[in-house]
């Protein structure tokens, strides 16, 4: 066996797996998206790009694009801010002896399946029986409709996502802070810089690469928001928390059964994601 054949022999299993799990479903989705199949009418005809044209005349699709963008921004920025805050607090104020214990407690939310997290918080935020509203009710005040208010619902669901990921990333950042050269931090302390100055000007600029990586990971993770949103609001009130993946589900697998149209949305989502993330990645590499 020559060298090229050996290389091919080694990478063949990976290529086969890639074909099975990525390429075939993608080709299948593209094929479906060019037809007018539905679960009720599986014998579809090819209709060209009609599903793609319909998408841009569909108010729910346009809304889902907008909500997905908001969701990305809120959850990525929120998770990063919480992570930075948590890591600084732990770094500055926690005793090294029980820091590990705190870290274990803080990563617990991420270990919860999203469906469980969603159900727990849905109950906690309930205006009638939820723990969060209990103080208001005990003061004879009207409870807050966290999940039923069109203005609050997206932020309330995003809060749960940030609670799960922000604390987890906070622990990661804490351990990254601990890896930084101690002499720089000590020198800054001798110069009596304030704590916020230390982190703003010294530690976090040194972790810029890690922060960008965490942001990218979170951005990709946030695209898979379906289970949390579905559990907590099912896309409501109305369509105010309906992201692209949730809308594609509602159209394809939900009661509509419009699988071709849902496939077109999925393909569009993949294209949009690839374009945006390639752009961000390139920018991140440059910086």
């Amino acid at each position: 066996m020559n060298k090229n054949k050996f290389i091919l022999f080694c990478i063949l299993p990976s290529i086969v797996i890639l074909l099975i799990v990525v390429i075939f479903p993608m080709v299948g989705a593209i094929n479906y998206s060019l037809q007018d199949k539905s679960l009720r009418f599986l014998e579809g005809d090819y209709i060209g790009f009609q599903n793609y044209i319909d998408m841009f005349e569909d108010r729910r699709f346009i809304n889902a694009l907008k909500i997905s963008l908001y969701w990305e921004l809120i959850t990525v920025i929120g998770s990063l801010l919480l992570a930075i805050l948590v890591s600084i607090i732990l770094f500055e104020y926690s005793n090294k002896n029980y820091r590990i214990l705190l870290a274990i407690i803080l990563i617990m939310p991420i270990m919860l399946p999203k469906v469980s997290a969603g159900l727990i918080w849905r109950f906690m935020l309930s205006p009638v029986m939820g723990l969060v509203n209990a103080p208001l009710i005990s003061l004879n005040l009207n409870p807050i409709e966290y999940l039923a208010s069109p203005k609050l619902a997206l932020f309330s669901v995003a809060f749960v996502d940030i609670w799960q990921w922000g604390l987890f990333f906070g622990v990661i950042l804490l351990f990254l802070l601990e890896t930084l050269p101690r002499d720089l931090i000590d020198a800054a302390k001798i110069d009596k810089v304030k704590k916020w100055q230390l982190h703003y000007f010294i530690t976090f600029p040194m972790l810029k690469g890690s922060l960008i990586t965490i942001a990218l990971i979170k951005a990709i993770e946030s695209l898979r928001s379906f289970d949390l949103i579905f559990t907590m609001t099912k896309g409501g009130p109305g369509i105010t928390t309906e992201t692209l993946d949730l809308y594609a589900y509602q159209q394809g697998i939900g009661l509509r059964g419009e699988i071709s149209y849902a496939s077109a949305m999925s393909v569009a989502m993949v294209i949009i994601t690839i374009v945006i993330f390639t752009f961000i990645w390139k920018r991140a590499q440059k910086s």
Partner: protein
Amino acid sequence: MLKKIIFKTFIILAISGISLNAYANSCKGDVSEINVLIQGHPAMVHMEKHKADFEKLMDLKVNVTTLGEQERRSQSRVDASTGAGAYDVYYVDEANIAEFVKGDWVESLDKYFPAGADMADFQAGKISIGNINGTNYFAPFMGGQDVLMYRKDIFAEKGISVPTNTDEMLEVAKALTDAPNMYGWAQRGQRGSGMNVWRWNPYHRGFGGEWTNADGSPNINSAEAVKATEYYMELFNYAPPGARTGTWSDQIEAFRAGKVAMMTANDVFGAWVEDAEKSSVVGKVGYADLPTPILSGGFAHGLAISKPGTSSECEKVMAGEFIGWATGKDMESMRLDEGIYDIARQSSASNPKFTSLMPDDFNEAVKATSPKTSLLIWKIPEWPAIGDELGLVLEELFSGTRSDIQGSLDEVQEYAIKYLEKSK
């Protein structure tokens, strides 16, 4: 092997006139397992608890998959329409039975229901939900109709009479609201043909609305539909916070928590509010006829044989046997023993365990609303999609992300026309 299959098929066809137990016996050992898709309804949870009895009886394994209502509908639809056939038995209901029959996804139950299980004993109103063109496609295990449930202790304390019409009902709901401790009313607003549309529809139909015009064309945007929407939205002012996107579970739990003075609900929830372990209002609830002109939404849930999931005759026979067992008289009697109120059989309705389970006024209320009970939804195969669109628009109106009722219903009308056209 082929000879064996042909022989068995021949035998089965030859004896089509004799009892199904003989069928089942000839198939024993041929089917090693059956897969059943259910919704986590108390009656089905109870069935699952006792499935070992059937497994022992038929020498096979029963695999049960439990999902929530909407997910169960979606999953069974995907399984049936794609021909995946992962399930031998589907849980079907009034909202999707027409679609499943039109899609040829469920088997006629008349042929496979065990003779000993006595199909004639099912209550006419419930078995009729699964009867399409004279053929029975499901065996019901529960169903019901609406009644008015109210806190008789609060009504007595305030000196308020039970409302007899919708105008009075609004006044009473308003008078009894003392937020955040007590709300005069409870209802659900979450989108879905089986969610907000189900509760909105008794007003829509009660005010005189019809799903179609005389020529059969859709009539979703009628003046009656607008009036029903306005009335329903007004009621939300006296309902607990969160109701505009709430589910039936939120509605019932708020009532059981003692936060609600009055609601219309399905009679199956009577046992829920009288459940001493989970309800704080046991013994405090009165039951009455619905205020006029509200109608009562009759419904039934049942089990059906999946066509894609049962490729052989023996699989169909065993699925039929399972359905006969799961919806049988003995099973209902066992449920009543355990305080599960769901019944679908005439014999159970006269069972003292059933009649003594609930207060007298409950039984009177059920009797009073029976004449105004029927399947109020649009019984067409396209209903799940049209109902879903209507549900979404209603939730948008309830939650305030839309305000133009007529314009919103016009959009649903347009959607229905297009969808029905596409379905032709």
